[in-house]
């Protein structure tokens, strides 16, 4: 606990902390239970442990940090962390992190995504520089998303706020699902790009659809990709005839009109009934507090589709 592993710790902390530790060793637990000493000890541990120069290299973690009130402790976020608007966006790249560029900010905590290029060696290089690293792996379900919020809360001294956020998210999402969940399942197709890549119910986003009792046509190809992102054949999609289509490539120009022009698609239920929904740009890929917005968006989209 009091090892010299934090370079930005005030100089007085170490002697004070050592003094407290040595004292408590001699006197057993008794001394530290004295109010004055306990306060001093927790102050020492707070000063040495609570990061106040955080770099977030994950747009989802950035949203989490600001939602639990740890925003003022964040000194820089990666170039894709565009939410909230007050986040200190920088030129740091989350996908190909540069250890020196990160170290130049003199951070005391770096949030690094495990999907980054050479993430493991970046992590050990940062640790060699005595910088604490929170290794974030993309969650595969809501439980994972909540776990990340709770862990970030514990790390940043915002435990209470993070628990509060989790409870409010759980309540809102439960409410949305109860009111919008389909009694009889409808079939949906989620398009990643115009080469017909899709998501199965094994993915985070697929599980959101499942919560609403939507039948994902990509599930038939679940065995094709172990991460749940198969590329569907055009003929299968025509055969599957989904009742609702979600376009996550709408921001790149794919639209109801452009998919209707594909051979065999104009007679598809979703296209014929104009149930083609353009997904918003960032929300579906941010596993943070705005997941509530995503649930509400899906609820609105499936309204009236049978």
């Amino acid at each position: 606990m009091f090892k010299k592993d934090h370079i930005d710790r005030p100089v007085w902390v170490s002697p004070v902390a050592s003094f407290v530790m040595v004292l408590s060793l001699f006197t057993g637990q008794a001394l530290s239970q004295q109010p004055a000493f306990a306060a001093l000890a927790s102050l020492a541990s707070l000063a040495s442990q609570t990061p106040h120069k955080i770099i977030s290299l994950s747009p989802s973690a950035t949203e989490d940090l600001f939602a639990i009130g740890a925003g003022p402790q964040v000194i820089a976020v990666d170039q894709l962390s565009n939410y909230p608007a007050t986040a200190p966006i920088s030129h740091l790249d989350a996908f190909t992190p540069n250890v020196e560029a990160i170290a130049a900010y003199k951070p005391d905590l770096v949030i690094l995504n495990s999907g980054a290029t050479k993430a493991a060696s970046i992590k050990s290089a940062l640790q060699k520089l005595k910088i604490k690293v929170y290794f974030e792996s993309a969650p595969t379900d809501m439980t994972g998303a909540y776990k990340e919020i709770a862990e970030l809360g514990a790390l940043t001294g915002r435990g209470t706020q993070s628990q509060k956020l989790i409870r409010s998210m759980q309540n809102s999402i439960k409410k949305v699902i109860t009111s919008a969940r389909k009694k009889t399942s409808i079939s949906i197709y989620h398009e990643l790009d115009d080469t017909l890549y899709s998501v199965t119910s094994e993915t985070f986003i697929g599980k959101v659809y499942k919560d609403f009792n939507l039948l994902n046509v990509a599930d038939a190809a679940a065995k094709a990709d172990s991460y749940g992102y198969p590329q569907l054949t055009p003929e299968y999609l025509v055969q599957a005839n989904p009742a609702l289509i979600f376009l996550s490539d709408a921001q790149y120009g794919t639209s109801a009109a452009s998919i209707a022009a594909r051979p065999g698609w104009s007679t598809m239920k979703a296209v014929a009934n104009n149930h083609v929904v353009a997904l918003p740009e960032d929300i579906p890929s941010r596993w943070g507090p705005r997941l509530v917005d995503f649930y509400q968006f899906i609820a609105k989209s499936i309204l009236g589709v049978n």
Partner: protein
Amino acid sequence: MFSKNRREGIGEIWNWQITATCALILFIVGALAISFGPIHLGIADIAKTLIGMDGLHGQERTVLLDLRLPRMILAALVGAALATSGAVYQTVFRNPLADPYLLGAAGGAGLGATIAITNSGGNIYGWLPIFSFLGATLAVATSFFISGRFFAEPNTLLLSGIAVGSFATAIQTYLQQRHSNALRPVYNWILGELTVANWSIVSWSSVYILSSIAVLISISKKLDGLLLSDEESFSLGIDPNRLRMIAVAAATLATATAVSASGLIGFVGIVVPHLVRGITHRVTNRSLLTISLVGAAFLVVADLGARSLLSPAELPIGVITAFVGAPFFLFVLRTRRITHS
């Protein structure tokens, strides 16, 4: 064999029955390819629809005429283009390892495709064909320009092609690193795919591919002269440099078109020419038509695998061409060596 050729004259350097057999094989695999898919279509109905009689209706008709048929034809065109230009490159460079992507075409097309993909996000097929076509032709043109008058030495052109290709690949890799969302589409494109085949792609690519193949077949007799030394071919009345120029230009046009329509499908350009030459024991370029037919049939079968093996998911076609092609190629190489020794 020698005595037979002598008896029947020079016209029998190539046995045209082999060509006819290959055309028949292409017809059969083409028929197979349009008969299989997630939606069941009756063979009789397919035949009726194709000859204009009352067969399939509605959605089934669309599936046959707008999904399966253009995809099968595009596979055949691309296969023919890659196999034929591979054979021609091998002759021109007197190098059995030459393939259609050698002169920087792959690197250039890859760069063009990556530029298109990184700037278009999920709407991948908007600019991709044009950019990869331009990338491939520009890269080959640059290789020519750099090697300049040293073109008399094919190895100089070959080396400058490799340099141009690496240069383009370096920029491509840089762009990919800067746009991580483009990684998967670019990767997929590199392995080749025919998923978005439609009649407009088929129609423009058929113009370029068929005319290039026609040019190459028309000069096939002269190309045999390049199998000799430049002095010898010159004495036969062939201008080797001019001939190489025409051959490489036509082969590049075919390759660039194939690449822009379907991505970088590997191994067809090497395996098919060697397969035909290995089985028939003939190295003449009069086999070009046969090579193009076999290339077409090979890719039609490979694409049937690409859309069936993981159905209803797709498998990149390049995986199949190399997975099936490489062992078969080794087998042919081995049996051929045994018969020679």
